[in-house]
């Protein structure tokens, strides 16, 4: 950690160590970014488990578990959101903060980047922020929508497109459609320059959990009761299930036939049936998938007691289970399938964006690992969109950690400094302010206001309410005259040291004694940082919350219609920035 701090002496304020957590419902992906160097993330089970002999395992202790029969889990994350903080804190403590934690870190010197699913509940977000700052005391923190992190990758290399221009490395991709199919749900997030198009985000409540439960149900109906062994069923699902490209023909192949009939494909397995040999946790700790072998199931052999292993034949279960993602109604879930949902999402957007989004569909999350998922999705999407649109669907090399690596790339990006919130800011402005700042993210609009100062003199005030895309205009409020070139800073009411010494500010701002200063034409007066509203009066303040300009306050003091106008001007700022 100390070495990392030395590596970046230019920014003393921002912590150089970043803890990046993609807090999934099944596994949490966590790792450090130290001084620009990205460590390998660890994939930690995000659960507290209890096995048959009532021994309790917390998070990564689960590796030590030898017997997964009838194991039970307690998960702090429900539907993708951290709900039970008692359990989540136990897991985080165990992994990051205990004395003998495998990834020990000191929150006071660390920035936290936490991914969460889109469309969360405000209450849960507030809880999360409060725990992060009040319980752990991270020095800096950013909570963002997990799928958006995937934009911080070289998306074009996933599609194996030759680069046509030397793009700036590490810049967020221009347009991506991220399909995140995880444990709790599958989300569709269209992104533009790494920013989500909120109105087009869609969610399908089918994820790995539903698929596992569905397979459990099928097996319990057809073979034997596995309702207490979801862990084993989950392994079985991961090993044996695939997404079919032709549901109907696979269905025919796996059918046994009418009464008395045994179709040849059924008897031989048809290349489709597989045997899953269940683990017994003595000789075998993992199940094995092998080709269907009729001899294994012969009655004579079973009667002779030769088969010491429990084998389970999987036929149409292999493809009927992941089919739920494309057709949830098969399992009784009244929601449109993934491809329809993508179409639904696109319908929210202008048609001009369709070609770029459709050409860059990226599938992440554990379900992307099913064989045939990408091909099937591409096939179904092509059927639903105009012929002219090229549809490309890609899966990153590791769909599970892709979001994490994206977040790690963001940690190295300059944008994170605009996004993150420090502990001091939290203490100053409160949780609601933090929530609003995170919701704004990398905003796009500038507020331009004309403020009447005296008769005939209007000031055009650019309030940097959020962060413009270009670093050039970053976080600045520019006071400009309406004529554009004649820029005036109105009278400062109190002589005061307006900017921290050493900071390169305009001469006028540093000259505290100047009561009135008119800049030369063409010279730009830049007032740094934030707009803060108190008592319905806006101050333009710098990083240290020192007033730099008294423009609005002064107008407020002035008589007449101007006051209303200023209050309006402040309102927009107030909603975004003040607690």
């Amino acid at each position, binding site marked *: 950690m100390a070495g990392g701090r030395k590596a970046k002496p230019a920014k003393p304020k921002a912590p150089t160590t970043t803890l990046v957590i993609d807090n999934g419902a099944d596994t949490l992906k966590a790792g450090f970014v130290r001084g620009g160097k990205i460590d390998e993330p660890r994939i930690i089970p995000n659960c*507290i488990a209890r096995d048959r002999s009532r021994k*309790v395992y917390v998070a990564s202790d689960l590796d030590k578990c030898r017997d997964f029969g009838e194991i*039970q*889990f*307690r998960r702090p994350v*429900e539907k993708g959101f951290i*709900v*039970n*903080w*008692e359990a989540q*804190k*136990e897991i985080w403590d165990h992994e990051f903060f205990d*004395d003998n934690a495998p990834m020990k870190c000191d929150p006071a010197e660390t920035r936290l980047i936490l991914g969460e699913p889109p*469309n969360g*509940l405000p209450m849960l977000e507030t809880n999360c922020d*409060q725990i992060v700052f*009040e319980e752990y005391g991270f020095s800096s923190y950013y909570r963002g929508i997990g799928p958006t992190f995937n934009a911080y990758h070289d998306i074009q290399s996933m599609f194996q497109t030759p680069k*046509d221009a030397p793009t700036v490395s590490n810049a967020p991709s221009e347009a991506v459609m991220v399909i995140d199919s995880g444990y709790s749900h599958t989300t569709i997030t269209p992104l*533009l320059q790494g920013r989500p*198009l*909120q*109105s087009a985000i*869609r969610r*399908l*409540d089918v994820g790995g*959990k*539903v698929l596992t*439960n569905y397979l459990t149900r099928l097996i319990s*109906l*057809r073979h034997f009761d596995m309702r207490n062994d979801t862990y084993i069923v989950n392994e079985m699902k991961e090993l044996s299930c695939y997404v079919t490209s032709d549901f109907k023909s696979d*269905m025919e192949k796996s*059918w*046994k036939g009418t*009464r008395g009939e045994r179709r040849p494909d059924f008897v031989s397995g048809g290349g489709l049936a597989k045997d899953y040999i269940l683990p017994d946790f003595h000789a075998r700790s993992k199940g094995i998938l092998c080709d269907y072998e009729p001899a294994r199931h012969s009655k004579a052999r079973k009667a002779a007691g030769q088969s010491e292993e429990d084998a389970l034949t999987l036929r149409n279960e292999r493809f009927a289970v992941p089919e739920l993602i494309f057709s949830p*109604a*098969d*399992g*009784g*879930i009244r*929601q449109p399938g993934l491809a*329809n949902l993508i179409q639904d999402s696109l319908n929210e*957007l*202008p*048609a001009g964006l*369709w070609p770029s989004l459709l050409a860059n569909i990226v599938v992440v999350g554990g379900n992307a690992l099913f064989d045939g998922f990408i091909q099937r999705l591409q096939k179904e999407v092509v059927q639903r969109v105009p012929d*002219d649109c090229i549809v490309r669907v890609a899966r990153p090399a590791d769909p599970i950690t892709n979001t994490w690596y994206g977040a790690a790339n963001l940690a190295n990006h300059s944008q994170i400094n605009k996004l993150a919130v420090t502990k001091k800011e939290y203490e100053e402005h409160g949780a609601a302010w933090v929530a609003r700042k995170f*919701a704004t993210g990398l905003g*796009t*609009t500038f507020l*331009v*206001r*004309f403020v009447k100062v005296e008769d005939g003199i209007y000031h055009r005030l650019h309030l940097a309410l959020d962060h*413009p*895309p*270009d670093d050039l205009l970053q976080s600045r409020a520019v006071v400009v005259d309406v004529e554009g070139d004649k820029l005036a800073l109105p009278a400062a009411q109190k002589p005061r040291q307006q900017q921290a010494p050493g900071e390169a500010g305009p001469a006028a701002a540093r000259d505290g004694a100047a009561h009135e200063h008119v800049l030369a034409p063409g010279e730009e007066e830049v007032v740094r940082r934030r707009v803060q509203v108190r008592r319905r009066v806006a101050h333009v303040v710098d990083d240290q919350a020192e007033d730099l300009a008294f423009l609005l306050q002064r107008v407020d003091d002035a008589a007449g219609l101007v006051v209303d*106008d200023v209050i*309006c001007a402040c*309102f*927009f700022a107030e*909603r975004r920035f003040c607690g």
Partner: protein
Amino acid sequence: MNNFGVIELASAKTTAAPGWAYVPDTSVNRSAPANRKRARNVPGLSIGDQTVRQETKRRKEAEALDRDGGRDNTIPLPVKSGRAQGKHTPNVRKILQSQKTFGNYLDDFLALQALTESNTAASSRSNAAGANNKKAAPNKRDTPSSSRQPAPEEDTQMLDADLPPLLPPPYKILPPDDQADSDPLLVSRVPEMPSDEELRKLLARPPLNYGEATGDWNEKYPVRVFCEVCGYWGRVRCMKCGTRVCALDCLEAHREECVTRYGL
């Protein structure tokens, strides 16, 4: 009620004796089976009953799919020995002690949202001008959670014209126009990229809330049904309980279960 197609006519005349007449029974009375043989087999369970029962079954199964394996049993946290329990702030203590589930939080949120809506509706009636201005604000970023009443906002707010473009220009220089480009057979119809201003507006749209983000399910296509025994297409329906099976083989397997559940 099966009264053999006889309906009582309500006449305007009030007589002491009610009038009776035979009228054609136009409503589809599916509970009266056409086939007497079948009628014997169905012990008073109409198709209507069956669909209700199946709908309940479907809903229960969908709920079961959504359940997390270990949610029913709460596993107590292991007792900590090495770690000293620090003091929590009141907020943190409240959060840590909360045993609310996601469902509870979602209900709270919906209740709060309904309350906010009724409040804003009430106040907008008293302040019509305020409501108008609220609509005029193009960059509204009002999450449903913020119950703050928007202040009147005048329409002088605008996007800055000299912001850098949101999307960088294409890297490749477009090839020069060719004569053949305007050929009606060759012309390609690519939709116009939205303008910068449109994109900014789009990006500034407020997030949907949890419930709004799911897609609408439309019953445009019939739901596929599967054999409940083997998983093949469900082509045959059990006459007793309406369960779908694929063929006689599976029907027999199903009947064993059906008999134990519903009797003969």
